[in-house]
């Protein structure tokens, strides 16, 4: 077998050196009645050629969104990932290296993490960021836990327009702790009113911007209210490209930003792995979960980087741990860093502007369709429309025409009749004018 270096002969020689007679002698600690005699009931090893064929067959059973007009969003966005990003993350030294616990031989990973932290802090308008979380939803949950620790309070107010997965993951994470949530209902066309819920018991308010339905809001007043009550404002961003065009959460007074970084550098990959962002103010850094990379010097005084403040982490203070997060999204955060470095200031702002203009053009086209209602007063690259029919049905019919026409809201918010006809539609730089025209024409036929 190609991955295993030993020949039968070598195994014999090694057993002899160890001083035992057979491989079985290595496994005598396993209770005899549990030892497997034969092989597992699974196929035998396959050649690389056959494995590749197997996966090509599976791939052929899916519809690649890059091969058809695609307007899917709802927290995961189709963007062009520069080839340099994917090339670099496949370099052996990044792909197959271990967590940088030995900084002398891990400066590549560490410096990239330091650059990641800085980029995330800059785009979110925060002071510091950690070295990534699993994804946006887990990052949101960790932000709430963190806010509870910071404020020593136990309740979090959750916007009804937070991505439902983020809300659900927060619920799951908190369910066996002393912390709890107050959940507002979705507010698609009306403004959300938090005032009644903000008081001195509240650890934080969690809002998303642009929200799940695509709407943008100025959160400055909300931030002030939170701060007046001694609570934190947690802002969730799951389309980070928006930060190239939109006021940053930091500018609006956010205390913690929990984000999904997939849009920058990370392929859609059916939902994972993605890269969770978590940024906050310097003063909260010791309550922040996850890894942190810090700058220092070596014995010769040369600048270098190390993992730091790890006393916060699980592997030191165990049951007082701030989180159980261990492995994070290293390679995805590297891809993010590379893509963001390629974009830079001028690229990110242009990309954001391009995404917005694409969405505006599409919205204008859709608004013209009879029976289609645009529900957003503001949006970045995604918005919600109301169809004169069930959105899931419409999407299925569009799918038959080879168009991925958006995400029915009811897939994420089921059992709410008001949501049945709502459709989330996103447009990014990957959409062409003809994609949009095809979509609009097909939707017209379907309605």
């Amino acid at each position, binding site marked *: 077998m190609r991955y295993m*270096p*030993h020949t039968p002969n070598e195994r014999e020689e*090694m057993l002899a050196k160890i001083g035992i007679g057979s491989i079985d002698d*290595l496994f005598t*600690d*396993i209770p005899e009645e549990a*030892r*497997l005699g034969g092989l597992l009931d*699974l196929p035998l090893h396959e050649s690389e050629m056959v494995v590749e064929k197997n996966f*090509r067959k*599976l*791939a*052929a*059973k*899916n519809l*690649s*969104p890059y091969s058809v007009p*695609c307007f899917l969003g709802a927290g995961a966005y189709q963007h062009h990932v520069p080839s340099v990003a994917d090339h670099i993350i496949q370099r052996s030294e990044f792909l*197959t*290296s271990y967590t940088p616990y*030995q900084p002398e*031989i891990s400066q*590549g990973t560490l*410096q990239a993490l330091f*650059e990641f932290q800085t980029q995330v802090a800059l785009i979110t308008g925060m002071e*510091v960021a950690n070295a990534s979380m699993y*994804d946006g939803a*887990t990052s949101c949950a960790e932000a709430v836990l963190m806010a509870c620790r910071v404020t020593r309070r136990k309740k979090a107010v959750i916007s009804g327009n937070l991505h439902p997965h983020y809300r659900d993951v927060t619920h*799951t994470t908190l*369910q066996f*702790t002393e912390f709890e949530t107050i959940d507002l209902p979705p507010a698609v066309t009306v403004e959300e009113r938090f005032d009644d819920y903000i008081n001195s018991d509240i650890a934080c308010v969690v809002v998303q911007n642009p929200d799940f339905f695509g709407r*943008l809001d*100025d959160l400055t007043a909300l931030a002030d209210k939170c701060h007046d009550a001694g609570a934190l404002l947690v802002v969730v961003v799951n389309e980070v490209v928006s930060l*190239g065009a*939109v*006021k940053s959460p930091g500018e609006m007074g956010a205390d913690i930003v929990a984000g999904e970084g997939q849009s920058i550098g990370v392929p*859609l*990959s*059916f939902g*994972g*792995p993605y890269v969770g962002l978590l940024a906050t103010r310097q003063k909260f850094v010791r309550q922040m979960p996850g890894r*942190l990379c810090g*700058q*220092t010097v*070596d014995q*010769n005084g040369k600048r*270098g980087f190390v993992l*730091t403040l790890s006393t916060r982490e699980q592997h030191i203070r*165990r*049951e007082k*741990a701030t989180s159980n997060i261990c*492995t994070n999204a290293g*390679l995805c955060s590297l891809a993010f860093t590379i893509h963001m470095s390629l974009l*830079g*200031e001028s690229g990110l702002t242009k990309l954001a502007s391009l995404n917005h*203009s694409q969405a505006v053009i599409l919205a204008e086209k859709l608004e013209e369709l009879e029976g289609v209602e645009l529900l*957003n*007063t*503001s949006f970045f690259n995604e918005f919600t429309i109301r169809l004169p029919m069930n959105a899931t049905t419409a999407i299925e019919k569009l799918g038959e025409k080879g168009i991925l026409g958006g995400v029915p809201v009811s897939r994420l918010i*089921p059992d709410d009749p008001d949501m049945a006809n709502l459709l989330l539609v996103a447009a990014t730089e990957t959409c062409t004018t003809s994609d949009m025209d095809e979509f609009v024409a097909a939707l017209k036929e379907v309605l």
Partner: protein
Amino acid sequence: LESPLIFEQGVPGRVGVDMADPEPVKSRLGGLERKGPIGLPDLSEPQVLRHFVRLSRQNYAIDAGFYPLGSCTMKHNPRINEKVARLAGLGDLHPMQPTSTVQGALELINSLAHWLKTITGMPAVAMSPAAGAHGELCGVMAIRAAHEAKGESRTRILVPESAHGTNPATAALCGYKVDSVPARKDGRMDMDAFAEKLGPDVAGVMLTNPNTCGLFETDVKKIADMVHEVGGYFYCDGANLNAILGRVRPGDLGVDAMHINLHKTFSTPHGGGGPGAGPVVLSDALAPFAPIPFVTHGENGFDLVEQKSGAAAQSFGRMKGYHGQMGMFIRALAYMQSHGADGLRQIAEDAVLNANYIRVGLQDKLNSPFSGICMHEALFDDSTLKGTGVTTLDLAKAMIDEGYHPMTMYFPLVVHGAMLIEPTESESRQTLDQFIGAMRHLLDKATAGETEYFLSAPLFAPRRRLDETGAARNPVLRWVSPEATDNEDASLSAAS
């Protein structure tokens, strides 16, 4: 060939990505336009490429050398896995496509689930946890959900003192008090102490098996029976599954839940710290409480259960966005298919063989705190170094100069100055021989009194030893423009 920070290389107006000019439209940003600059540096594509290539060359990696790293199973990462993960129609699927357009993806997840269940002999698997620690959380949450469904509220979880650090943290997040069980002299859990601690308030036991001393817990079935007897569940930390693949199925040992590190046992690349994936196999008792989403198979093909209702009515909830770490699933399944039932068993055999080969190769130079055959990793203590002025850490740093990644140090905590070495099955005998030779050479040097050599190591690394204390005392966690003048920013860059 070093590279300054990317922020120190920009010139405004460059760009590394071309794109069409946006068509002029009336802004719908609702007046929320960003006003000031972000502060990102502008670079061209060749600059960015060279920067990261240079950075990469500061890293050690499996592709470049041997990681004798205990408890972390750093082994060969096949490139075919990377290739298939990038196939059009697999790597580029949107998670919210209609399920009718992703039947191949759901089939793939289902197929991986089948392999995992068969390998472990367990009836169910939760696919969505994103990493080992996340999987632990999943397992312990399922335990708690099961107890709550029975109306029971238990408070304690038993954990051996040699446990992985994540175990207690996980228990704490689930509202359990951790009760530590001491080890016996032979490195296994003390059964008497265990029996003593068991009781009706015990939610379960978290056991790593093979344990972090590299030993198989011989009493594992008894442990399972005992914890079941008091109504608790048996969580098995699967970090060391590599050692027993195809040799024993955790399901046959009475395990109720076990996470599987796809990035260890099934070799999805470590990537300098993730992403990972930590599916959790579950017993019939815990299966109803598994997190959403999961894949089902019916007459109309594959489908996803994404809400806590119907088949998922008792689910303890959702652990992450979407459907799990698909990119890792692809790689792990490719790895499994490449090995097959025969190869998986061979993995365990060769992994254990290699560990024992190292154990025997060093046993006259280093003390093994526990005698006899080990499983996939060999554990030593620092008694050889006693009085030399050389610590385990110094020895580890000297290994860097020999061309190796240091072994795992000071873990498990139960052993003084522990050194834990897991060669894995993918290293050749020649590599092991060279490694043993290098270690013997270093140990001779240490006992010969060449202390200075160790204190100054590493010499041949991109950096000498770094000031970690200083980094923690005065944390500089981001770059700040030297032109930044306001106080807040200045404080951030205090130490730069």
